[in-house]
């Protein structure tokens, strides 16, 4: 590390932005996420013919032509990983957004409405939560086959109940606050109370929860792809890349290590960032 990074320049001191309070690990995590995000955005527009066969041997080690070696068909591993990034991140991200939106809306509704509606939503989602996440996804895939939209749906269904629980328990507390009672007395409707009175007060924990769900979704989808039940060939996410190239293990090839490390860097980076978010809790870590 250069001294410039250790001694903050005058400009950064004056401009106290939101990053100031972050630990070094958190900033590192943010950088890694930004890197993979950029790769995911750029990958679809790269002029390289993805999945192109070459005359290279299979499971070659790291070389100048192939920075991360070659896979089980002699394809360049770096190209495969870059091509897999949009699937890996995209599917998990969309699923997380759906799960958290759905969970937040239902959680807020349950807290504000109370009564039978609260009971019905809570009981139903409690049932889903008492099926281990991998079992639930396997059962859904067994019933409907595997495709990218279905995988998004699977991860969304699996992670909605957890998000619902957190949002509901936070919202129930805020719902009892005086200003919400006042808003109610003023004659405000439910959507207004949910959106304007309660949501701004739970935005921090919701964001932290979203990050946590994203890590879970990444893990789940990678595991499903690893079992051969996730993203189907010729498409490949990082999980399927590990599965395809398991044969490289005995020769110690980079083909299996590279996608595995890609997953590890991304999940660990997101976890580091969450630890720096305001209002993050460890409370939900024990499920899944």
């Amino acid at each position: 590390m250069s001294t410039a990074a250790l001694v903050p320049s005058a400009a950064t001191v004056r401009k106290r932005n939101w990053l100031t309070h972050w630990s070094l690990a958190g900033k590192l995590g943010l950088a890694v996420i930004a890197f993979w995000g950029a790769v995911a955005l750029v990958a679809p527009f790269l002029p390289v013919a993805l999945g192109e066969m070459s005359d290279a041997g299979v499971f070659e080690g790291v070389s100048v032509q192939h920075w991360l070696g070659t896979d089980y068909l002699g394809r360049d591993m770096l190209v495969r990983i870059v091509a897999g990034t949009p699937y890996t991140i995209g599917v998990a991200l969309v699923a997380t957004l759906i799960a958290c939106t759905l969970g937040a809306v239902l959680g807020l509704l349950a807290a504000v409405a109370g009564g039978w509606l609260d009971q019905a939503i809570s009981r139903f989602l409690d049932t889903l939560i008492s099926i281990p996440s991998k079992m639930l996804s396997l059962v859904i895939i067994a019933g409907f086959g595997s495709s990218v939209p279905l995988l998004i749906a699977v991860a969304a269904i699996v992670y909605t109940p957890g998000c619902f629980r957190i949002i509901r328990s936070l919202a129930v507390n805020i719902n009892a606050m005086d200003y919400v009672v006042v808003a109610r007395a003023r004659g405000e409707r439910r959507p207004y109370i949910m959106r304007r009175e309660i949501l701004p007060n739970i935005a921090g924990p919701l964001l932290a929860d979203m990050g946590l769900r994203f890590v879970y979704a990444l893990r789940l989808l990678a595991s499903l792809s690893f079992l051969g039940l996730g993203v189907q060939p010729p498409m490949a996410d990082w999980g399927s890349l590990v599965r395809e190239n398991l044969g490289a293990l005995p020769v110690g090839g980079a083909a299996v290590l590279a996608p595995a490390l890609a997953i590890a860097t991304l999940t660990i980076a997101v976890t580091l960032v969450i630890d720096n978010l305001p209002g993050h809790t460890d409370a939900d870590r024990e499920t899944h």
Partner: protein
Amino acid sequence: MNSTILRLVAGRIVAGLGSLLAVSAVVFAITGVLPGDAAQEKLGQEATPETLAALRKEMGLDRSAVVRYFDWLGGMVTGDPGKSVVTGMPVAEAVKSRLPNSLLLAAVTTAFAVPLALGLGILSALWRGSTFDRMTSMTTVAVVCVPEFLVATLAVLVFAVQLKWLPALSYETSLSSPGEMLRSFALPVLSLGSVIVAQMLRMTRAAVIDQLTAPYIEMVRLKGASAARTVLFHALPNAIGPIANAVALSLSYLLGGVIIIEVIFNYPGIARLMVDAVTQRDMPLVQACTMIFCAGYLILVLIADVCGIVANPRLRHQ
């Protein structure tokens, strides 16, 4: 044991059975009702209406979904979950041949993981803030947030490929002699165990720290008790409830982890049976395996709950 505890525990058991029933309805709906007509799918596009009707009758699909559900539930409870669609073999037989292997793997992993996790968890709570504590917590965070197959892959790479201590992905798991068993068990138990140890360690550490910051521990320290005495005789007895709770909850990870581990190591257990059944879309087998896993999961959660209740001194001395 008093009546309050008994009542609470009985309540939890009833609630657990209720959850299991609800879960069975969800599982049946996803696998048996929502995907549409299984007979149509089996015969394909060229099916004539007559053959379709005949097959529906044979498969029992001409009855309503509710009747089929109760029929299926009855079969599940009496130990006859039907026949495999792919092999025609009774599901009960397939499960019976695989379940003991999975239970053995789970038992060995538990026997190895629980003492290790408790020991490390208590030590890192004692020396919190030290290098040891920071190292363990960094490692556990890393292990917890990466997928299980990654841990397994790395274990194979290190112990089988680089160090050559153990066989790599064994294609024939032999459980006949103790030596063979040790060799084929080592890597699956190591990979499965590390995930569970990481979980359990975090929770144990939190439970013990929670006690160590309590005022009565301060008092014990002021009276001049040694560190070991403080922890072993004062803090631990009070932390046993939360720890038992943590152990039971962490063990429920076995259920998720075992799927990946059995597949990667080609272990002839029930989780691999289920993954194969999902690949072949063999519904009766999928349903039976899922219900076994869900029952196991609910039992562990129930044990965690009961430990929490029984260990609560306010409930015990009423």
